[in-house]
């Protein structure tokens, strides 16, 4: 054995070691959910439900203590640049905007005390609170809000989502295109009054303002150090960022004079360096941990010591689905698409493979979401009818006539085919005789091909950005939407969606969406699979009021710790 041989082997060993991979705790290698929300948070600490413990609004002796949790490095702490859920979860605790979302998912006042809406629904007049200040004690003025909106919509800021969240404001498009210096639709009336004009009456406009793109920042803070200001941000949120070591740790500390009620906790420590959440939880190193499928059986056992620390999170507002390109044979025949829908036994799948952590999806909008239709006619498992529809399709009885089907999948980190998809393909094979093939792709390539509509069939999810049906139905199914990845096009649906955009009467508006959703489901450009179900997580018994909601909301200020272990 020559030493150079060994030397090379050692070299190649490092190479191999450097290029072999896995995530430590591949939180069931979740599929890419709707883009920014595709959180890589290792714990997947879900936004979860009203904790089992009684919510006891802050009485004096609940304050203090430090909550520790596992987190990942947020890609940005600049609210105007945020596109992802990881960043957003930190940002909503440190910063704030005119409005926010409360525990019951209503849009409620934050920096604005209240607001008037003009009769035509286009002009919003916000009255700012008098007691709202930045962390350094400076009061928040209408000028601060205006400046922040100008900054967010400055093309030099490079916000990728500003069109989506602020594009309704009159003048924003012109400014983004470089045709205007300022937003014509934003006007400072006086120190505490601000007027925003939008291009049409849109009831979801306020909901959009709860996203960090519309948050208020301190001009002095940013102009003092435009590149690095967010290391010491001067926000208006319930917590101050007191320490941040990239890749290591982040500490939020209490802002005692927060205008909506100061947090109970002194500090929240987020461990950013990674690790295995279950292990850390069991070793009392963190207070909260998500539970992967592999651990669930063990902990659901009532005899397990952790069983009592189990919390159930309500479904997040998301749907997992198989998209079918309606221009690609054999998916160009609606009967084939319906047959594929009917041939899957979702209930069985949910129970035996996914441990009932998901809710089988009947339609598109998740339960509890505004505009959810309980009477929607979806597809129940019916192999007979599926076979019948398939034989009625233009491809007829002979399976050999059916062109091959390729289903493309991707993970948010690396590639993956989830267990349930393997079963789905097997069910199609068994119930219809159709043999589809998988093709896994890494996410960036997947996105490119998705947007270019190159896929025949794909597996993906969508998470609500704000609680309004428009965020699902219009964005994903309007024939002219750039997010309509299935090439679905139905003039009737288009006109319903367009009418709903400007309808001011909420119940009428939801009816329009209900009709559109039914038409879409009947045309079956999707196989809707799951609403993310009631997920489980572990919370130490001394942690109280860890509110878990289907949307990310500022929630840490409600949390308090008690001494008992």
């Amino acid at each position: 054995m020559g030493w150079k041989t060994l030397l090379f082997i050692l070299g190649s060993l490092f190479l191999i070691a450097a290029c072999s991979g896995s995530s430590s705790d591949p939180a069931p290698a979740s599929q890419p959910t709707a883009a920014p929300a595709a959180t890589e948070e290792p714990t997947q600490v879900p936004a979860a439900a009203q904790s089992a413990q009684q919510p006891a609004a802050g009485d004096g002796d609940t304050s203090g203590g430090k909550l520790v949790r596992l987190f990942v490095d947020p890609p940005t702490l600049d609210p105007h640049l945020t596109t992802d859920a990881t960043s957003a979860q930190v940002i909503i605790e440190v910063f704030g905007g005119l409005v926010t979302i409360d525990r019951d998912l209503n849009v409620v006042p934050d920096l604005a005390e209240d607001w008037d809406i003009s009769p035509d629904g286009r002009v919003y007049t916000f009255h700012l609170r008098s007691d709202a200040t930045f962390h350094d004690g400076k009061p928040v003025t209408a000028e601060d809000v205006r400046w922040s909106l100008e900054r967010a919509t400055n093309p030099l800021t490079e916000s990728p989502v500003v069109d989506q969240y602020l594009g309704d404001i009159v003048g924003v498009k012109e400014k983004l295109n470089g045709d205007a210096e300022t937003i014509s639709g934003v006007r400072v009336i006086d120190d505490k009054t601000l007027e925003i004009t939008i291009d049409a009456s849109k009831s979801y406009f306020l909901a959009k303002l709860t996203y960090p793109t519309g948050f208020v920042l301190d001009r002095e803070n940013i102009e003092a150090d435009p590149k690095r200001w967010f290391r010491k941000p001067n926000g208006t949120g319930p917590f101050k960022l007191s320490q941040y070591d990239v890749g290591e740790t982040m500490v939020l500390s209490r802002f005692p004079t927060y205008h909506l009620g100061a947090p109970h906790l002194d500090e929240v420590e987020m461990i950013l360096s990674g690790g295995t959440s279950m292990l850390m939880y069991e070793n009392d190193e963190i207070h909260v941990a998500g539970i992967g499928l592999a651990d669930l059986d063990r902990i659901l056992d009532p005899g397990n010591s952790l069983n009592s620390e189990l919390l159930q999170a309500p479904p997040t507002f998301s749907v997992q689905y198989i998209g079918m390109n309606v221009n690609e044979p054999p998916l160009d025949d609606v009967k084939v698409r319906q047959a594929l829908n009917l041939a899957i036994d979702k209930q069985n799948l949910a129970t035996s493979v996914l441990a009932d952590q998901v809710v089988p999806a009947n339609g598109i909008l998740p339960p509890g979401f505004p505009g959810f239709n309980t009477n929607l006619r979806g597809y129940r498992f019916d192999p007979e009818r599926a076979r019948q529809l398939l034989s009625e399709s233009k491809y007829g009885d002979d399976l050999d006539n059916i062109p091959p089907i390729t289903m493309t999948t991707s993970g948010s980190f690396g590639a993956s085919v989830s267990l349930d998809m393997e079963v789905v393909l097997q069910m199609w094979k068994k119930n219809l005789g159709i043999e589809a093939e998988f093709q896994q792709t890494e996410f960036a390539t997947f996105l490119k091909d998705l947007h270019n509509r190159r896929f025949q069939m794909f597996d993906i999810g969508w998470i609500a950005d704000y609680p309004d049906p428009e965020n699902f139905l219009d964005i994903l199914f309007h024939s002219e939407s750039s997010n309509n990845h299935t090439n679905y096009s139905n003039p009737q649906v288009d006109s319903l969606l367009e009418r709903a955009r400007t309808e001011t009467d909420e119940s009428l508006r939801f009816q329009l969406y209900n009709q559109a959703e039914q038409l879409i489901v009947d045309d079956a450009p999707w196989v809707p699979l799951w609403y993310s179900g009631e997920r489980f997580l572990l919370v130490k018994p001394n942690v109280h009021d860890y509110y878990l909601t289907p949307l990310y909301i500022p929630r840490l200020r409600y949390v308090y710790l008690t001494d008992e272990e």
Partner: protein
Amino acid sequence: MGPYIVRRLVWLPVILLIVSFITFALGRFGPGDPVEVLMGQHSNPEVVERIREQRGLNDNIFVQYGRYIWNVTHGDFGESFKYRGRTVGELLKKKMWVSAQLNIAALIVSVGLGVPVGLFAAMKQGTGWDTVAVSITLVGQSVPIFLTAPGLLLIFALKLDVLPTHGWEGFFSPNLVLPAVAMGVPGVAIIARLTRASTMDVVSQDYVRTARAKGLPESIVRNRHILRNSLIPVVTTLGFSLASLAFTSFIVERFFGIPGVGNLLIESVFARDFPVINAIVLIGTTLFVMANLLVDLLYPVMDPRIRLGASQIA
């Protein structure tokens, strides 16, 4: 020797330019787009176009490359696309240092176990002990990290609760033990076999025979003649591992919660974070070339008949 080193070093910038340009071009013409990844499923071609324009991603590739090289020579590696508002320098510096420390710790494990085992095997050459020792190290090399990492954590962090589950607290901390062992054990086999082979070589050399014949005490023969010479190849091997010193596997990093470079590289590739990828490639290439040079310089140490320069090694 001197002129030879200079000549080799003159190549370094040339190699760096070629490598960085290819990386650059692959990134630009390869699939996937950093702005699209930022936006995720929310496709909006206008926005992508606007931000690409803003960042100069639409310029001619040679213009972009020239700009990049200009900045790099002025010490500016640019800003990360994914971690917005952070410079590549600040992202990399700390992480590389962490990775380097972890690698050193792992090397200490490999060498610390490998050399004694190798010497032992060489002394017991041909006996059952030899086979057993070599086989054990080989098993260590063959078990994938996918088992050793969770296995070690399960036993030492959870069941025995003697070592921390995660985190980075610097070189001299118990946090380093498990990852260093997980990373170092596969290398034990290599070092052990290396030591064994070279020791066996050395033992049969004339000078050892002479030393023994002179009647020198066995301990002196072993320490002065055998050990020192048989460790030369080990040292050389370590020299080569310099090339990968600044990089650690993201698997190890993820299992043990270590803020190293591996994870950043993978993330950057997935997010098409070109500034970070380019910087890592530049640094990696430099290290690689230097390590290669070092190994070539050590060849003659290993075998004095090989002369550097002239007609031998260009």
